[in-house]
């Protein structure tokens, strides 16, 4: 067990670093980046309110003037933050504050400026005294570069996390609470009309893209219901911006429980319906397999009541593979549903990711990817350990 844990933790460390390198490299190796918004602003500001010095200062604050490996290592573990071991390599160039502009004059008189080399290098010694995050491995995700400029990424995530947690938590819980009984009943009454209808619904539910379903929901319950003068549901956001009056329900005040609840209803239903199909199908398959086992036949032969056979003998054993789904659930609850949150304008983690990607806030993107990878790995580890607990035949090796 101990060797298993050590080996697994080591593997997890490597996978995390590989995933971090890949996403960090992908983001920063391409042109454009967190400074884009600032540069556009400078072009539009006319009166030169943002000058080169400002750009340089912001660049240094976000470490964009450092070479990629150095920047990555400072982001990951907050090192190097000055000359190595106190004195080594104080004058090593680790980045470039201003690139060298070279003027090329062609024989035909054309003039072109190209950037080549570096006019002003950043040395290791200059890194001393710069603000640096303690490193992602030590729980410091750095500062947001665009969305909430210069505020810790953790703050940004923390403002969004509660929304995702209660939306995803509620929908996963509902999906399990509704999906498991449906799956059990379908399996017990295999090929009955109920089973047939449920498998068809599950089949359609699993093939339906979430955004189509979400848009249909908005269309029916917000737009058409409102036009018909029926009680309708607000179509987006987690909290309203002004009081609304809904027929039959009455005045809905901004920020009241009713307001939040009405806005929560639609995204939650959509997410529940989409995952419901998966859960019930999973339980049905697993139950069907268990119901054919010898011990179920033995229990029936002993004269155990059918209800007891289903609940005590079959259901309990059919829930063993359930544990495998835990790894996924952990990530789902944290990461939210990117597309559904976007459609409903829900201020959760999923939409934060899309926003951050759109606005090149790479520190936020990286933080979310990192947390996701770690959660997924932890989920898989927990699953493996739980599996040995619920099924003693399996040993960790």
């Amino acid at each position, binding site marked *: 067990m101990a060797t298993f844990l050590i080996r697994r933790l080591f593997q997890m460390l490597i996978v995390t670093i590989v995933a971090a390198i890949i996403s960090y490299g*992908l983001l920063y190796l391409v042109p*454009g980046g967190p400074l884009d918004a600032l540069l556009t602003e400078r072009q539009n500001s006319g009166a030169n309110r943002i000058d080169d010095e400002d750009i340089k200062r912001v660049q240094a604050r976000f470490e964009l003037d450092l070479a990629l490996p150095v920047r990555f290592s400072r982001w990951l573990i907050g090192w190097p933050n000055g000359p190595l071991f106190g004195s080594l390599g104080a004058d090593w160039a680790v980045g470039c504050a201003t690139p060298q502009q070279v003027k090329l004059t062609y024989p035909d008189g054309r003039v072109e400026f190209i950037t080549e080399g570096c006019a002003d290098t950043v040395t290791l010694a200059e890194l001393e005294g710069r603000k640096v995050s303690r490193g992602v491995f030590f729980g410091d995700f750095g500062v947001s570069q665009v969305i909430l400029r210069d505020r810790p990424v953790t703050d940004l995530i923390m403002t969004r996390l509660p929304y995702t947690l209660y939306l995803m938590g509620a929908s996963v819980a509902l999906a399990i609470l509704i999906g498991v009984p449906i799956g059990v009943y379908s399996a017990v009454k295999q090929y009955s009309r109920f089973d047939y209808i449920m498998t068809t619904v599950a089949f359609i539910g699993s093939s339906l893209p979430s955004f189509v379903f979400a*848009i249909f929901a908005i269309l029916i319950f917000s737009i058409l219901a409102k036009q018909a003068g029926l009680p309708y549901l607000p179509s987006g956001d987690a909290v309203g911006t002004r009081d609304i009056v809904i027929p039959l329900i009455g005045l809905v005040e901004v920020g009241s429980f009713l307001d939040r609840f009405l806005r929560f209803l639609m995204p939650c239903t959509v997410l529940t319906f989409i995952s419901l199909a998966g859960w019930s199908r999973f339980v049905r398959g697993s139950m069907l397999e268990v119901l054919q086992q010898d011990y179920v036949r033995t229990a029936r032969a002993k004269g155990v009541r059918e209800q007891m056979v289903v609940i005590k003998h079959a259901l309990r054993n059919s829930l063993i593979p359930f544990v495998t789904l835990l790894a996924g659930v952990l*990530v789902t609850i944290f990461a939210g549903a990117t597309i559904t949150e976007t459609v409903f304008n829900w201020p959760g983690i999923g939409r934060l*990711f899309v926003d951050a990607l759109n606005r090149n806030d790479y520190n936020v993107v990286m933080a979310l990817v990192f947390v996701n990878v770690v959660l997924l790995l932890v989920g898989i580890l927990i699953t493996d350990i739980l599996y040995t607990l619920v099924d003693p035949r399996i040993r960790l090796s």
Partner: protein
Amino acid sequence: MATSTTAVPVADIAGGRSESQWQIVVRRFRKHKIAVFCLWLLGAMLILSALAPVLAPFPRDEPNLKTRFVPPFTTDEQGNFRVLGTDHLGRDFFTRLLYASRVSLGTALIATIISSVIGVVLGMLAGYFGGWVDTLISRILEVVATFPIFLLLLILSSILVQNINSVPLPEFFVRFLAWIFTVSEREARGIFAVILILALFGWTSTARLMRGMVLSVRENVYIESARALGASNTRILSKHIFPNSLPPMIVDFTLGVNGTLVAESGLSFLGYGIQDPTPTWGNMLAFAQSYMFQHPWMPLIPSLPILIASIAINYIGDGLRDALDPRQRI
């Protein structure tokens, strides 16, 4: 039935009707009525989209500010009858939908073909040869399984889509795509990028499935006898292992097309997939969504095809699964 290696066809001995493997599959598939109907439906969609340049009543992306938001089945100010209305720039929805079907279905098909070929080949190598090949491929599969795929998919496409013109892509394939989708080469590059991304993330499940299939197929006695007769690895792989592990791959391919179709529309819907002048169901739906409060009919037009195609492909996959599984009685 073990005499099937002799030169005389079994049917001749039995004196009955001769039926090839594929005829049996077709006969069994036709018993699944919904699947057959869905096959016709999808076929009709494919034919319509293939005939897009002939059928389209208007130019694909010519904006016309005088005919914006014309509802379906009405005649606009200029006296043109609009079967499915016009969008926020006054472009004809029916025309764009025809081309969008071409792009969406074509992208899904090509991306799935590429990822299936990669997956089948790698899975076959891993399963058949074992050893370090298997270790390497299995490790890659394991690592990929622990990545947050959807997030990486979004990152990669946001980068590729922004910098598509600086990415070196094989020109002949770009021209091929431009020809298939009747788009300019610039648009074809955008489609190519999305195909690449989808194929890159799609092959792992196929490889895993294929590896498992090959592991079980290669234990059969006929593989042993083929080897005893002196057949080469290439021959065993192509004549014995591949055909015998094909059935689940066909089902996997069908469901893969649906997965890719949904992923592509999702990406395009979020704005990271195929970009606007090129119509796809996903990006048409994204625009329709912003105007759905004033024009509730708008989102229906691009979303119904997604719905129909997606459900149809799933039912075809279901029918194929039943038809290809000899243990299943239908």
